């Protein structure tokens, strides 16, 4: 498959999802080994007043460390960082994470576009962006920015997504984006993809 062989020196993964996010992430993240060699940054839209954070929900199912990002925290491999509710998550040149309260983008805070655009700016062609299920267009601009910076964009197959609007929009906005099933994404993250995902 072209995608797999074209992923070379990936340094970080960013993931965006909305409607159906918890189910999709519950399939994608739990199989990852504790020593997964990359940092994973995630922006999902969830109601701010949800009693249990999605991070703690997923931590219970995962071997990798899952947490909400704190301001200026260094992005470490083997860790999944969620944008905290009501904050945008961004990456700085020194690979530290920044939070921001600025206005919602696409009615969303966190916004997937904000995360992807800032990550594209820092990681350039060594970024892998994954757009999952969602019922809005957030992430499309971001996917385009990642593609333009030379990064890789993979999108959950619209027909297999709980909500297909977000995958459709990302595929339309980013000409180099490739659709993939969740199972193939999982495979790519796991042993088969592992050698390819590692830095050279």
């Amino acid at each position, binding site marked *: 498959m072209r995608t797999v062989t074209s992923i070379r020196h990936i340094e970080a993964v960013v993931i965006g999802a909305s409607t159906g996010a918890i189910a999709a992430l519950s399939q994608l993240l739990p199989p990852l080994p504790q020593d997964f060699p990359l940092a994973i940054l995630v922006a999902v839209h969830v109601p701010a007043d949800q009693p249990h954070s999605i991070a703690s929900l997923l931590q219970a199912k995962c071997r990798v460390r899952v947490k*909400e*990002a*704190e*301001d*200026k*925290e*260094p992005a470490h491999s083997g860790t999944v960082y969620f944008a*905290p509710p009501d*904050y*945008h998550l*961004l*990456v*700085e*040149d*020194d690979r*530290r994470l*920044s*939070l*921001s*309260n*600025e*206005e919602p983008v696409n009615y969303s805070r966190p916004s997937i576009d*904000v995360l992807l*655009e*800032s990550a594209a*700016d*820092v990681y*350039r062609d060594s970024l892998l962006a994954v757009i999952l299920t969602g019922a809005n267009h957030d992430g499309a601009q971001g996917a385009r920015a990642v593609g*333009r*910076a*030379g990064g890789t964009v993979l999108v959950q197959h619209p027909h297999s997504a709980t909500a297909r609007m977000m995958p459709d929009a990302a595929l339309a906005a980013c000409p180099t984006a490739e659709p993939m099933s969740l199972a193939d994404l999982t495979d790519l993250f796991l042993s088969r993809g592992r050698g390819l995902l590692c830095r050279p």
Partner: protein
Amino acid sequence: MTQEAAARTGDIELRLFLEAMYSQYHYDFRGYSRASLKRRLALACQRLGCSTLSALQERLLHDDRILPQLLDYMTVQVSDMFRDPAYFRALRQHIIPHLKTYPSLKVWVAGCSSGEELYSLAILFREEGLEEKTMFYATDVNGNALARAEAGVYALERVALFTKNHRLSGGSGSLSDYYHAAYGAARFDQTLRRRTVFSDHSLASDSVFGEMHLISCRNVLIYFDRPLQDTAVGLFRDALVRKGFLGMGARETLRFNAHAKAFTEILPQERIYQKRGETEDPCAR
């Protein structure tokens, strides 16, 4: 131009723009978090009709009337009264009892934006019977925001959230005792700011003023890069009395700060720190 080269040019333009801002107007944004600042300035360029940051720089240098507008883009003005009610509840339950032991108090709200945090604290101190012996200092780098803070007028549709937050913070009375609603706006009781000094102060370039018992600086340091965060927290350490308190935003931490050791994390969940006494300060030894 390749994407790579364009990105490099963008970085050069940003550096020059921040130098121009600093040299001409003494607003120092050079140590701000780049990721957010880049977004904000891209937005400013777009809205002000400048195709590049260099074009915006030319306007900035030759027309000081755009300065206030630019400051509004470069600083993020989002706030609410009793934002994160758990923070204010923790102040009430755990910090106020310490503060009650002092004969007089100084409280600094650093980066007060349009005043929501200041009025929240003023109400809390009134409810806890500490208002009369307290002086508040509300500072911000954005002059427009400070003017709104002094006015204390907020859109009425925001008041439902303020009211809910106030209640969740453990507020004894009703928030409606503190404002007067008219023409779609809630005007907060002017006596609440009787004991407040508002002033233009930048954590990036101004010096310390002092002997504070409590500093509340929330959601301001997230816009600073690591070295500038060190500078600001150094300022707070110097401004606080021994055993004084520092409250931060819900997702902010001193963990990555050079001065972390000068503080004890007394309420980790609510991000409230206490400055160590001289003898327990490991740096002093």
